[in-house]
């Protein structure tokens, strides 16, 4: 007797236990990133990251500018780590053009790259602190990174986006007296970050929120192709500065930091240990650097006639950064692809959050050392 309703009008039964929650974009717990989580009570049953919010098409824009004019905008994805983001592109362009870089420029690059790694990691640490409600850990790193930003300003003239590395070397030589100032600041900086252990890493509240949450086993870290601190916190000793040394990293003595646990605590501790290793590298580089000499081989403004493809990679604050350049002989590259650490680590997020409590989402998510703007480029 009852007439069937058309399918569009038929009521659908709702599973009351499962709720979909949109965290972000622009949320204090997610940054510029939307994480669609499905929760059952307090537990996450599924997670779908949606990174495309600040997409600016860097790769497409690179096809419209020549090798030199690409530099200021290819560093935009991570402005705090702009030297490292640009590094593989510059190395790739040098290989295509067949340029040999002066020795002093290589050391200047290593110093700039390590300073940038610390500047980025301090910013990341500040946000990690505020995500967990630890206000002191927001203010201390935010203040201490000013020391290094001042150094970079002395070196390049700009506080964040430096555009300092160019195919053939670096743009400017170091200012007079830079070595002494740098050594003094770095020594003080290292003393400061050692104090973070007492207030942050040994803090029982932090430990209870990060230990044994979001555990990524060694096997899964390899299988998912994660990189950087996420990989090293899971017990894989892989750092491109050691495994495939570029510029002068093979002449410097340092070690990679590896932890076995693979939980949020290990993932947040490895970048902090890396910063101390960076201070070590900077001190050695300042000592071994040739005291004088050229820092740049001048290029033609429109380098033409380069044919071929190249894939170069470096280790940044967030992991391996690769740049694939295809060139067909025109002044502009035919295709530039940036393979970035944030994008590669994001794949682990759904696996890590499954079965976690919603309250642990910020600590697991931000321990991936994720930079939203870099992931969608």
């Amino acid at each position, binding site marked *: 007797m009852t007439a069937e309703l058309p399918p569009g009008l038929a009521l659908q039964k709702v599973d009351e236990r499962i709720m979909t929650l949109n965290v972000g974009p622009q949320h204090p717990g997610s940054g510029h990133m939307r994480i669609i989580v499905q929760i059952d009570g307090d537990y996450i049953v599924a997670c779908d990251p949606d*990174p495309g919010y600040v997409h600016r098409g860097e790769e497409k824009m690179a096809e419209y500018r020549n090798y030199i004019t690409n530099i200021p905008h290819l560093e935009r994805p991570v402005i705090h780590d702009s030297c490292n983001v640009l590094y593989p592109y510059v190395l790739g362009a040098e290989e295509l053009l067949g340029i040999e870089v002066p020795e002093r420029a290589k050391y200047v690059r290593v110093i700039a790259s390590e300073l940038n790694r610390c500047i980025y990691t301090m910013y990341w640490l500040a946000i990690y602190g505020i995500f967990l409600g630890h206000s002191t850990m927001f203010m201390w790193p935010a203040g201490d990174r000013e020391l290094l930003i001042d150094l970079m300003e002395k070196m390049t003239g700009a506080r964040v986006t430096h555009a300092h590395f160019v195919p053939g070397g670096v743009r400017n030589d170091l200012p007079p007296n830079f070595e002494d100032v740098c050594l003094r600041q770095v020594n003080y900086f290292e003393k400061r970050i050692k104090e973070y252990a007492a207030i942050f890493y040994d803090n029982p509240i932090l430990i209870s929120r990060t230990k044994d949450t979001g555990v990524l086993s060694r096997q899964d870290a390899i299988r998912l*192709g994660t990189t950087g601190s996420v990989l090293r916190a899971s017990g894989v000793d892989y750092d491109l500065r050691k495994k495939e040394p570029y510029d002068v990293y093979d002449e410097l003595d340092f070690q990679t930091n590896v932890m076995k646990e693979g939980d949020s605590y290990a993932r947040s501790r490895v970048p902090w240990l890396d910063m101390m290793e960076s201070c070590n590298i900077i001190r050695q580089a300042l000592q071994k650097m040739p*005291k004088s000499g050229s820092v*740049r081989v001048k290029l033609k403004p429109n380098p033409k006639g380069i044919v071929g493809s190249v894939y170069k990679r470096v280790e940044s604050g967030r992991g391996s950064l*690769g740049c694939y350049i295809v060139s067909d002989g025109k002044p502009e590259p035919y295709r530039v692809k940036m*393979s970035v650490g944030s994008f590669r680590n994001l794949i682990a997020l759904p696996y890590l959050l499954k079965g976690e409590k919603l309250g642990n989402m910020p600590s697991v998510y931000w321990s991936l050392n994720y930079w939203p703007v870099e992931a969608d480029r």
Partner: protein
Amino acid sequence: MSSDSEKPVAEAKPETKPTSPPPAKPAPKPAAKKQEEKPIPVFEKGISEKIVEKFGDKVKVTFVKEDRVGINATKESVHEVAEFIRDALNYDHVESVSGVDYPADNEIEVVYHIGSYSDNTLARQVLELTTRAPRESNPIPGNDATKLPSLRDIFYSVEFHEREIFEMLGVYFEGHPDNRRLLLPEDWADLPPLRKDFAIKGR
């Protein structure tokens, strides 16, 4: 103060140097480079020979240089080749997947950069596996001939990369469990933006 007075002297020298030596410098470098390029890296050659021995005409070695090996596979054999690379050659993850549009050849090239964490001898190596899909001038992403087999069941790490290639170049990956958009806006209704016929406004 002493370092201040030393610096200008040190800086003055290099400024004159780059102007005069460049004509002399480039001449020995290409010669030195050619000498370096001539001997084929043995280790890398061994890797490429193993693949050629197994697959014969199905694959083509595009280049063998230091730490890099380039292999070109056909659309039909790429899945099989990738499986061999993982199981027999110990490569365990994909670092990067790039798509390159070639409108002149009517093809889109997909490039997998494959590396290894678990095998220490391969730590420096990157294997470049390329394959090509037919390209259509009026693309309907997902519903045209621009299709390739997905490598998701071999390398988990390609999951997001292949989703990116799908939206940016319109290459549909058959067998991928989750062929959705990743980066573009939800209401994107234009050409796939990384194709060469998609022009930036004002250019």
